[in-house]
Protein backbone atom coordinates (compact mmCIF):
# COMPACT_ATOMS: atom_id res chain seq x y z
CA UNK A 1 0.00 0.00 0.00
CA UNK A 2 2.75 2.42 0.96
CA UNK A 3 4.57 1.60 -2.28
CA UNK A 4 1.45 2.31 -4.27
CA UNK A 5 0.81 5.60 -2.50
CA UNK A 6 4.40 6.62 -3.16
CA UNK A 7 4.07 5.69 -6.84
CA UNK A 8 0.77 7.46 -7.40
CA UNK A 9 2.20 10.99 -7.71
CA UNK A 10 4.79 9.68 -10.16
CA UNK A 11 2.07 8.00 -12.21
CA UNK A 12 0.03 11.17 -12.18
CA UNK A 13 3.04 13.12 -13.39
CA UNK A 14 3.57 10.63 -16.20
CA UNK A 15 0.01 10.88 -17.45
CA UNK A 16 0.04 14.65 -17.03
CA UNK A 17 3.08 15.06 -19.27
CA UNK A 18 1.68 12.53 -21.72
CA UNK A 19 -1.28 14.81 -22.26
CA UNK A 20 0.97 17.59 -23.51
CA UNK A 21 3.24 15.68 -25.87
CA UNK A 22 2.25 12.87 -28.21
CA UNK A 23 3.80 9.48 -28.82
CA UNK A 24 3.78 8.94 -32.57
CA UNK A 25 3.96 5.33 -33.80
CA UNK A 26 5.83 5.36 -37.10
CA UNK A 27 5.85 2.31 -39.37
CA UNK A 28 8.99 2.79 -41.43
CA UNK A 29 10.31 0.73 -44.34
CA UNK A 30 13.48 -1.14 -43.38
CA UNK A 31 15.64 0.76 -45.90
CA UNK A 32 14.83 4.13 -44.27
CA UNK A 33 14.85 2.94 -40.64
CA UNK A 34 18.49 3.81 -39.93
CA UNK A 35 18.11 7.28 -41.47
CA UNK A 36 14.94 8.01 -39.50
CA UNK A 37 16.66 6.83 -36.32
CA UNK A 38 19.20 9.60 -36.86
CA UNK A 39 16.48 12.15 -37.58
CA UNK A 40 14.15 11.27 -34.69
CA UNK A 41 16.03 13.22 -31.97
CA UNK A 42 15.99 16.35 -34.18
CA UNK A 43 12.22 16.22 -34.54
CA UNK A 44 11.69 15.34 -30.89
CA UNK A 45 13.72 18.34 -29.82
CA UNK A 46 11.87 20.66 -32.19
CA UNK A 47 8.34 19.45 -31.38
CA UNK A 48 8.42 17.87 -27.94
CA UNK A 49 6.64 14.83 -29.37
CA UNK A 50 8.15 11.37 -29.12
CA UNK A 51 8.67 9.02 -32.08
CA UNK A 52 8.29 5.23 -31.69
CA UNK A 53 9.86 3.61 -34.73
CA UNK A 54 8.79 0.19 -36.00
CA UNK A 55 10.87 -1.21 -38.84
CA UNK A 56 9.58 -3.78 -41.29
CA UNK A 57 8.77 -4.55 -44.91
CA UNK A 58 6.22 -2.35 -46.67
CA UNK A 59 4.08 -5.35 -47.62
CA UNK A 60 3.93 -6.51 -44.01
CA UNK A 61 2.94 -3.03 -42.84
CA UNK A 62 0.28 -2.79 -45.55
CA UNK A 63 -1.31 -6.01 -44.27
CA UNK A 64 -1.01 -4.91 -40.65
CA UNK A 65 -2.60 -1.50 -41.34
CA UNK A 66 -5.55 -3.34 -42.88
CA UNK A 67 -5.82 -5.15 -39.55
CA UNK A 68 -5.93 -1.86 -37.59
CA UNK A 69 -2.27 -1.74 -36.54
CA UNK A 70 -1.79 1.18 -34.12
CA UNK A 71 0.48 3.25 -36.39
CA UNK A 72 0.01 6.98 -36.94
CA UNK A 73 2.30 7.44 -39.94
CA UNK A 74 3.50 5.00 -42.61
CA UNK A 75 6.78 5.66 -44.44
CA UNK A 76 6.71 3.13 -47.26
CA UNK A 77 9.52 1.88 -49.51
CA UNK A 78 7.28 2.48 -52.53
CA UNK A 79 4.46 4.69 -53.77
CA UNK A 80 1.97 1.92 -54.62
CA UNK A 81 1.05 0.82 -51.12
CA UNK A 82 0.44 4.35 -49.76
CA UNK A 83 -1.69 5.04 -52.88
CA UNK A 84 -3.60 1.80 -52.26
CA UNK A 85 -4.16 2.73 -48.61
CA UNK A 86 -5.50 6.08 -49.78
CA UNK A 87 -8.05 4.44 -52.04
CA UNK A 88 -8.87 1.92 -49.28
CA UNK A 89 -9.78 4.97 -47.15
CA UNK A 90 -7.20 3.89 -44.56
CA UNK A 91 -4.86 6.82 -45.20
CA UNK A 92 -5.79 10.49 -44.79
CA UNK A 93 -6.64 11.89 -48.23
CA UNK A 94 -4.11 14.47 -49.37
CA UNK A 95 -1.48 13.54 -46.77
CA UNK A 96 0.61 11.47 -49.19
CA UNK A 97 3.91 12.83 -50.51
CA UNK A 98 7.28 11.51 -51.71
CA UNK A 99 9.72 11.88 -48.83
CA UNK A 100 12.68 10.21 -50.54
CA UNK A 101 13.70 8.96 -53.97
CA UNK A 102 16.01 5.99 -53.95
CA UNK A 103 19.12 5.55 -56.06
CA UNK A 104 20.10 2.14 -57.42
CA UNK A 105 23.76 1.12 -57.38
CA UNK A 106 25.64 -1.96 -58.58
CA UNK A 107 28.09 -2.62 -55.79
CA UNK A 108 30.90 -4.93 -54.73
CA UNK A 109 32.71 -4.66 -51.39
CA UNK A 110 35.95 -5.37 -53.28
CA UNK A 111 37.88 -2.78 -55.27
CA UNK A 112 38.22 -3.29 -59.01
CA UNK A 113 35.26 -5.66 -59.44
CA UNK A 114 32.68 -3.17 -60.73
CA UNK A 115 33.81 -0.51 -63.25
CA UNK A 116 32.21 2.93 -63.38
CA UNK A 117 30.32 2.12 -66.61
CA UNK A 118 28.91 -1.23 -65.56
CA UNK A 119 30.71 -3.04 -68.39
CA UNK A 120 31.31 -5.92 -66.03
CA UNK A 121 27.67 -6.96 -66.53
CA UNK A 122 27.95 -7.32 -70.32
CA UNK A 123 31.36 -8.99 -70.11
CA UNK A 124 29.68 -11.63 -67.96
CA UNK A 125 32.88 -12.65 -66.19
CA UNK A 126 31.30 -13.15 -62.82
CA UNK A 127 29.82 -16.04 -60.92
CA UNK A 128 26.68 -14.59 -59.32
CA UNK A 129 24.82 -11.27 -59.20
CA UNK A 130 22.56 -10.41 -56.28
CA UNK A 131 19.26 -8.55 -56.64
CA UNK A 132 16.15 -8.08 -54.48
CA UNK A 133 12.93 -9.86 -55.44
CA UNK A 134 11.56 -7.75 -58.34
CA UNK A 135 7.94 -8.66 -57.63
CA UNK A 136 7.91 -7.26 -54.10
CA UNK A 137 10.96 -5.01 -53.59
CA UNK A 138 11.11 -1.66 -55.46
CA UNK A 139 14.91 -1.83 -55.80
CA UNK A 140 14.54 -5.33 -57.21
CA UNK A 141 12.08 -4.05 -59.82
CA UNK A 142 14.52 -1.23 -60.70
CA UNK A 143 17.38 -3.74 -61.06
CA UNK A 144 15.24 -5.82 -63.40
CA UNK A 145 14.48 -2.71 -65.50
CA UNK A 146 18.19 -1.87 -65.78
CA UNK A 147 19.13 -5.43 -66.75
CA UNK A 148 16.28 -5.54 -69.28
CA UNK A 149 17.37 -2.20 -70.77
CA UNK A 150 20.87 -3.62 -71.16
CA UNK A 151 19.43 -6.72 -72.82
CA UNK A 152 20.84 -9.01 -70.13
CA UNK A 153 17.79 -10.03 -68.11
CA UNK A 154 16.86 -13.18 -70.05
CA UNK A 155 20.44 -14.37 -70.40
CA UNK A 156 21.26 -13.97 -66.71
CA UNK A 157 18.09 -15.84 -65.81
CA UNK A 158 18.83 -18.64 -68.28
CA UNK A 159 22.39 -18.93 -66.94
CA UNK A 160 21.05 -18.99 -63.36
CA UNK A 161 23.42 -16.21 -62.37
CA UNK A 162 20.90 -14.23 -60.31
CA UNK A 163 20.72 -14.68 -56.55
CA UNK A 164 17.38 -13.19 -55.49
CA UNK A 165 17.10 -11.85 -51.94
CA UNK A 166 13.76 -11.44 -50.22
CA UNK A 167 14.44 -7.73 -49.79
CA UNK A 168 17.16 -5.20 -50.55
CA UNK A 169 18.97 -5.86 -47.27
CA UNK A 170 19.35 -9.51 -48.17
CA UNK A 171 20.76 -8.54 -51.58
CA UNK A 172 23.26 -6.34 -49.74
CA UNK A 173 24.14 -9.19 -47.36
CA UNK A 174 24.79 -11.54 -50.31
CA UNK A 175 27.44 -9.12 -51.61
CA UNK A 176 28.85 -7.98 -48.27
CA UNK A 177 29.50 -11.57 -47.21
CA UNK A 178 31.12 -12.39 -50.56
CA UNK A 179 28.51 -14.95 -51.52
CA UNK A 180 27.86 -13.08 -54.77
CA UNK A 181 30.43 -11.07 -56.74
CA UNK A 182 28.24 -7.97 -56.73
CA UNK A 183 24.66 -6.90 -56.15
CA UNK A 184 22.15 -4.22 -57.08
CA UNK A 185 21.55 -2.43 -53.79
CA UNK A 186 20.36 0.96 -52.54
CA UNK A 187 22.87 3.79 -52.52
CA UNK A 188 21.68 4.52 -48.97
CA UNK A 189 22.99 1.11 -47.88
CA UNK A 190 26.56 1.58 -49.10
CA UNK A 191 27.15 5.33 -48.92
CA UNK A 192 28.70 6.56 -45.68
CA UNK A 193 29.05 10.35 -45.48
CA UNK A 194 29.10 10.59 -49.26
CA UNK A 195 31.79 7.98 -49.96
CA UNK A 196 31.46 4.32 -50.89
CA UNK A 197 33.82 1.52 -49.85
CA UNK A 198 34.49 -1.01 -52.62
CA UNK A 199 33.67 -0.60 -56.31
CA UNK A 200 30.38 0.52 -57.82
CA UNK A 201 28.39 1.69 -60.84
CA UNK A 202 25.48 4.17 -60.70
CA UNK A 203 23.15 3.30 -63.60
CA UNK A 204 21.66 6.34 -65.39
CA UNK A 205 18.31 7.37 -63.86
CA UNK A 206 16.83 6.97 -67.37
CA UNK A 207 17.34 3.20 -67.18
CA UNK A 208 14.76 2.69 -64.42
CA UNK A 209 11.58 4.28 -63.11
CA UNK A 210 12.18 6.55 -60.09
CA UNK A 211 12.10 4.63 -56.80
CA UNK A 212 9.65 6.89 -55.01
CA UNK A 213 9.10 6.33 -51.31
CA UNK A 214 5.83 7.83 -50.10
CA UNK A 215 4.57 8.76 -46.65
CA UNK A 216 0.95 8.91 -45.44
CA UNK A 217 -0.93 9.66 -42.25
CA UNK A 218 -3.23 6.83 -41.25
CA UNK A 219 -6.94 7.49 -40.94
CA UNK A 220 -7.44 5.88 -37.52
CA UNK A 221 -4.56 7.75 -35.87
CA UNK A 222 -5.59 9.58 -32.71
CA UNK A 223 -2.73 12.05 -33.17
CA UNK A 224 -3.65 13.67 -36.49
CA UNK A 225 -2.20 17.06 -35.59
CA UNK A 226 1.14 15.73 -34.37
CA UNK A 227 1.34 13.37 -37.36
CA UNK A 228 0.72 16.25 -39.78
CA UNK A 229 3.39 18.30 -38.00
CA UNK A 230 5.86 15.41 -38.37
CA UNK A 231 5.22 15.02 -42.12
CA UNK A 232 5.53 18.79 -42.60
CA UNK A 233 8.86 18.69 -40.78
CA UNK A 234 10.02 15.72 -42.87
CA UNK A 235 9.15 17.61 -46.03
CA UNK A 236 10.40 21.09 -45.22
CA UNK A 237 12.98 21.18 -42.44
CA UNK A 238 16.43 21.93 -43.93
CA UNK A 239 18.19 19.70 -41.39
CA UNK A 240 15.80 16.83 -42.16
CA UNK A 241 16.30 17.19 -45.91
CA UNK A 242 20.08 17.38 -45.52
CA UNK A 243 20.03 14.14 -43.49
CA UNK A 244 17.92 12.37 -46.12
CA UNK A 245 20.28 13.49 -48.90
CA UNK A 246 23.40 12.55 -46.92
CA UNK A 247 21.92 9.06 -46.55
CA UNK A 248 21.97 8.57 -50.34
CA UNK A 249 18.43 9.58 -51.36
CA UNK A 250 17.12 12.40 -53.54
CA UNK A 251 14.21 14.56 -52.55
CA UNK A 252 11.68 16.26 -54.80
CA UNK A 253 12.73 19.89 -55.09
Amino acid at each position, binding site marked *: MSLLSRMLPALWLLTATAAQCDDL*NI*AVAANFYGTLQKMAPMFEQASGDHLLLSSGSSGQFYTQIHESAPFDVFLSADADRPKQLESDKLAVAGSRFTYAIGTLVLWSPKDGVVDHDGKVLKAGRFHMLGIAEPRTAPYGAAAQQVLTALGLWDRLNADKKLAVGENINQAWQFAATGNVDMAFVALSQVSKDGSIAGSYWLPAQSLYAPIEQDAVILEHSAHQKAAAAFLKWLRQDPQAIATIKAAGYHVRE
Partner: protein
Amino acid sequence: MIGSLYSSDDLVALWISLRLATLTVLLLLLLCTPLAWWLATTRSRLRVIGEATAALPLVLPPTVLGFYLLLFLGPNGWGGALMHALGLRPLSFSFGGLLFGSVLYSMPFMMQPLQNSFQSVGVRMLEIAATLRATPLDRFFSVAVPLARRGFITGAALTFAHTLGEFGVVLMLGGNIPGRTQTASIAIFNHVETFDYAGAQRLSLTLLLTCFALLLLVYATNRRTPDPTAAQV
Protein backbone atom coordinates in the same frame (compact mmCIF):
# COMPACT_ATOMS: atom_id res chain seq x y z
CA MET B 1 27.23 -1.78 -15.86
CA ILE B 2 24.22 -3.35 -17.58
CA GLY B 3 23.00 0.09 -18.63
CA SER B 4 26.20 0.76 -20.53
CA LEU B 5 26.20 -2.65 -22.21
CA TYR B 6 22.67 -2.47 -23.62
CA SER B 7 20.60 0.42 -24.92
CA SER B 8 17.35 1.08 -23.04
CA ASP B 9 15.36 -0.24 -26.02
CA ASP B 10 17.37 -3.47 -25.89
CA LEU B 11 16.75 -3.87 -22.16
CA VAL B 12 13.01 -3.38 -22.63
CA ALA B 13 13.06 -5.89 -25.50
CA LEU B 14 14.88 -8.44 -23.33
CA TRP B 15 12.34 -7.91 -20.55
CA ILE B 16 9.44 -8.43 -22.98
CA SER B 17 11.06 -11.63 -24.30
CA LEU B 18 11.66 -12.92 -20.78
CA ARG B 19 8.07 -12.23 -19.72
CA LEU B 20 6.72 -13.73 -22.93
CA ALA B 21 8.78 -16.92 -22.58
CA THR B 22 7.92 -17.39 -18.89
CA LEU B 23 4.20 -16.83 -19.34
CA THR B 24 4.15 -19.08 -22.42
CA VAL B 25 5.72 -21.89 -20.38
CA LEU B 26 3.20 -21.45 -17.54
CA LEU B 27 0.18 -21.34 -19.85
CA LEU B 28 1.36 -24.32 -21.86
CA LEU B 29 1.97 -26.32 -18.67
CA LEU B 30 -1.66 -25.71 -17.71
CA LEU B 31 -2.97 -26.39 -21.19
CA CYS B 32 -0.82 -29.31 -22.31
CA THR B 33 -0.75 -31.38 -19.11
CA PRO B 34 -4.37 -32.55 -19.39
CA LEU B 35 -4.21 -32.73 -23.19
CA ALA B 36 -0.97 -34.73 -23.23
CA TRP B 37 -2.36 -37.02 -20.53
CA TRP B 38 -5.43 -37.64 -22.62
CA LEU B 39 -3.35 -38.28 -25.74
CA ALA B 40 -1.11 -40.68 -23.82
CA THR B 41 -3.89 -42.71 -22.24
CA THR B 42 -6.91 -42.61 -24.52
CA ARG B 43 -7.91 -45.42 -26.85
CA SER B 44 -10.25 -43.12 -28.75
CA ARG B 45 -9.89 -42.84 -32.50
CA LEU B 46 -9.77 -39.09 -32.05
CA ARG B 47 -6.31 -39.54 -30.60
CA VAL B 48 -4.46 -39.53 -33.93
CA ILE B 49 -6.36 -36.41 -34.97
CA GLY B 50 -5.36 -34.77 -31.69
CA GLU B 51 -1.71 -35.75 -32.15
CA ALA B 52 -1.62 -34.47 -35.71
CA THR B 53 -3.33 -31.18 -34.77
CA ALA B 54 -0.94 -30.57 -31.88
CA ALA B 55 2.03 -30.92 -34.24
CA LEU B 56 0.61 -28.59 -36.92
CA PRO B 57 2.27 -25.35 -35.70
CA LEU B 58 5.58 -26.95 -36.76
CA VAL B 59 4.46 -27.09 -40.37
CA LEU B 60 3.54 -23.52 -41.29
CA PRO B 61 6.33 -21.00 -41.85
CA PRO B 62 6.22 -18.63 -38.84
CA THR B 63 5.37 -15.51 -40.86
CA VAL B 64 2.48 -17.40 -42.49
CA LEU B 65 1.20 -18.54 -39.10
CA GLY B 66 1.59 -14.92 -37.95
CA PHE B 67 -0.37 -13.72 -40.97
CA TYR B 68 -3.29 -16.08 -40.27
CA LEU B 69 -3.28 -15.16 -36.60
CA LEU B 70 -3.33 -11.49 -37.60
CA LEU B 71 -6.40 -12.08 -39.76
CA PHE B 72 -8.03 -14.17 -37.02
CA LEU B 73 -7.32 -11.78 -34.14
CA GLY B 74 -7.83 -8.56 -36.12
CA PRO B 75 -11.10 -6.58 -35.94
CA ASN B 76 -12.44 -8.38 -39.04
CA GLY B 77 -11.60 -11.89 -37.79
CA TRP B 78 -13.53 -14.24 -35.51
CA GLY B 79 -11.11 -13.79 -32.64
CA GLY B 80 -11.34 -10.01 -32.94
CA ALA B 81 -15.15 -10.17 -33.13
CA LEU B 82 -15.22 -12.33 -30.00
CA MET B 83 -13.03 -9.83 -28.12
CA HIS B 84 -15.31 -7.04 -29.32
CA ALA B 85 -18.41 -8.90 -28.13
CA LEU B 86 -16.75 -9.27 -24.74
CA GLY B 87 -16.08 -5.53 -24.68
CA LEU B 88 -12.31 -6.01 -24.99
CA ARG B 89 -9.75 -4.64 -27.41
CA PRO B 90 -8.45 -6.90 -30.20
CA LEU B 91 -5.35 -8.90 -29.24
CA SER B 92 -3.36 -8.03 -32.37
CA PHE B 93 -0.42 -5.66 -31.81
CA SER B 94 -0.51 -6.20 -28.05
CA PHE B 95 1.48 -8.30 -25.59
CA GLY B 96 -1.61 -10.48 -25.13
CA GLY B 97 -1.57 -11.19 -28.85
CA LEU B 98 2.09 -12.20 -28.72
CA LEU B 99 1.28 -14.53 -25.84
CA PHE B 100 -1.60 -16.09 -27.80
CA GLY B 101 0.65 -16.61 -30.82
CA SER B 102 3.52 -18.00 -28.73
CA VAL B 103 1.31 -20.49 -26.94
CA LEU B 104 0.11 -21.82 -30.27
CA TYR B 105 3.50 -21.72 -31.95
CA SER B 106 5.39 -23.43 -29.09
CA MET B 107 2.69 -25.97 -28.23
CA PRO B 108 4.40 -28.98 -29.90
CA PHE B 109 7.53 -28.34 -27.84
CA MET B 110 5.56 -28.85 -24.63
CA MET B 111 3.13 -31.46 -25.88
CA GLN B 112 5.56 -34.01 -27.32
CA PRO B 113 7.85 -34.45 -24.27
CA LEU B 114 4.85 -34.55 -21.92
CA GLN B 115 2.98 -37.11 -23.98
CA ASN B 116 6.09 -39.28 -24.31
CA SER B 117 6.81 -39.27 -20.61
CA PHE B 118 3.16 -39.93 -19.69
CA GLN B 119 3.21 -42.87 -22.09
CA SER B 120 6.32 -44.32 -20.45
CA VAL B 121 4.68 -44.09 -17.03
CA GLY B 122 2.39 -46.82 -18.27
CA VAL B 123 -0.86 -48.08 -16.81
CA ARG B 124 0.64 -50.62 -14.40
CA MET B 125 1.78 -48.15 -11.76
CA LEU B 126 -1.58 -46.45 -11.91
CA GLU B 127 -3.41 -49.74 -11.53
CA ILE B 128 -1.33 -50.54 -8.46
CA ALA B 129 -2.21 -47.13 -7.06
CA ALA B 130 -5.87 -47.81 -7.84
CA THR B 131 -5.76 -51.06 -5.84
CA LEU B 132 -4.53 -48.94 -2.92
CA ARG B 133 -7.72 -46.90 -3.34
CA ALA B 134 -6.13 -43.78 -4.78
CA THR B 135 -8.69 -41.60 -6.59
CA PRO B 136 -8.03 -40.85 -10.29
CA LEU B 137 -6.93 -37.31 -9.40
CA ASP B 138 -4.69 -38.60 -6.64
CA ARG B 139 -3.23 -41.20 -8.99
CA PHE B 140 -2.47 -38.50 -11.51
CA PHE B 141 -0.80 -36.06 -9.12
CA SER B 142 1.04 -38.49 -6.81
CA VAL B 143 2.04 -41.13 -9.35
CA ALA B 144 1.93 -39.94 -12.94
CA VAL B 145 3.26 -36.39 -12.52
CA PRO B 146 6.30 -37.31 -10.37
CA LEU B 147 7.15 -40.18 -12.72
CA ALA B 148 6.84 -37.89 -15.74
CA ARG B 149 8.94 -35.09 -14.28
CA ARG B 150 11.59 -35.41 -16.96
CA GLY B 151 8.96 -34.65 -19.55
CA PHE B 152 7.89 -31.55 -17.62
CA ILE B 153 11.47 -30.30 -17.33
CA THR B 154 12.31 -30.93 -20.97
CA GLY B 155 9.03 -29.47 -22.22
CA ALA B 156 9.40 -26.32 -20.15
CA ALA B 157 13.02 -25.77 -21.23
CA LEU B 158 12.32 -26.33 -24.92
CA THR B 159 9.26 -24.07 -24.83
CA PHE B 160 11.19 -21.32 -23.07
CA ALA B 161 14.10 -21.44 -25.51
CA HIS B 162 11.84 -21.70 -28.55
CA THR B 163 9.79 -18.66 -27.44
CA LEU B 164 12.93 -16.58 -26.84
CA GLY B 165 14.04 -17.28 -30.40
CA GLU B 166 10.63 -16.69 -31.96
CA PHE B 167 10.65 -14.17 -34.79
CA GLY B 168 8.21 -14.48 -37.67
CA VAL B 169 5.03 -14.84 -35.63
CA VAL B 170 5.81 -11.97 -33.27
CA LEU B 171 6.93 -9.68 -36.10
CA MET B 172 3.72 -10.17 -38.07
CA LEU B 173 1.29 -10.29 -35.15
CA GLY B 174 3.01 -7.71 -32.97
CA GLY B 175 4.14 -5.09 -35.47
CA ASN B 176 7.61 -4.49 -33.98
CA ILE B 177 6.45 -1.72 -31.62
CA PRO B 178 9.20 -0.68 -29.16
CA GLY B 179 8.20 -1.14 -25.53
CA ARG B 180 5.12 -3.14 -26.41
CA THR B 181 5.71 -5.94 -28.89
CA GLN B 182 9.37 -5.60 -29.82
CA THR B 183 11.06 -8.73 -28.47
CA ALA B 184 14.81 -9.31 -28.22
CA SER B 185 14.88 -11.38 -31.41
CA ILE B 186 13.20 -8.54 -33.33
CA ALA B 187 15.60 -6.02 -31.77
CA ILE B 188 18.47 -8.13 -33.12
CA PHE B 189 16.84 -8.01 -36.57
CA ASN B 190 16.58 -4.20 -36.29
CA HIS B 191 20.28 -3.95 -35.40
CA VAL B 192 21.21 -6.06 -38.42
CA GLU B 193 18.95 -4.01 -40.70
CA THR B 194 20.73 -0.83 -39.63
CA PHE B 195 24.19 -2.43 -39.91
CA ASP B 196 24.70 -2.15 -36.15
CA TYR B 197 26.43 -5.52 -35.92
CA ALA B 198 27.96 -4.81 -32.50
CA GLY B 199 24.47 -4.26 -31.05
CA ALA B 200 23.16 -7.37 -32.81
CA GLN B 201 26.02 -9.48 -31.49
CA ARG B 202 25.58 -8.27 -27.91
CA LEU B 203 21.91 -9.23 -27.89
CA SER B 204 22.46 -12.49 -29.79
CA LEU B 205 25.17 -13.52 -27.36
CA THR B 206 22.87 -12.71 -24.44
CA LEU B 207 20.10 -14.90 -25.88
CA LEU B 208 22.52 -17.70 -26.73
CA LEU B 209 24.19 -17.74 -23.32
CA THR B 210 20.84 -17.55 -21.49
CA CYS B 211 19.46 -20.48 -23.44
CA PHE B 212 22.70 -22.44 -23.21
CA ALA B 213 22.83 -22.02 -19.43
CA LEU B 214 19.19 -22.99 -19.13
CA LEU B 215 19.50 -26.08 -21.32
CA LEU B 216 22.71 -27.09 -19.56
CA LEU B 217 20.92 -26.88 -16.24
CA VAL B 218 18.00 -28.91 -17.53
CA TYR B 219 20.06 -31.67 -19.06
CA ALA B 220 22.34 -31.85 -16.01
CA THR B 221 19.27 -32.18 -13.78
CA ASN B 222 17.78 -34.79 -16.05
CA ARG B 223 21.02 -36.76 -15.94
CA ARG B 224 21.26 -36.73 -12.19
CA THR B 225 17.67 -37.78 -11.61
CA PRO B 226 17.60 -41.38 -12.78
CA ASP B 227 14.73 -42.07 -15.15
CA PRO B 228 12.01 -43.12 -12.72
CA THR B 229 10.21 -45.09 -15.37
CA ALA B 230 13.25 -47.14 -16.44
CA ALA B 231 13.27 -49.58 -13.51
CA GLN B 232 9.64 -50.60 -13.57
CA VAL B 233 7.75 -53.37 -15.45
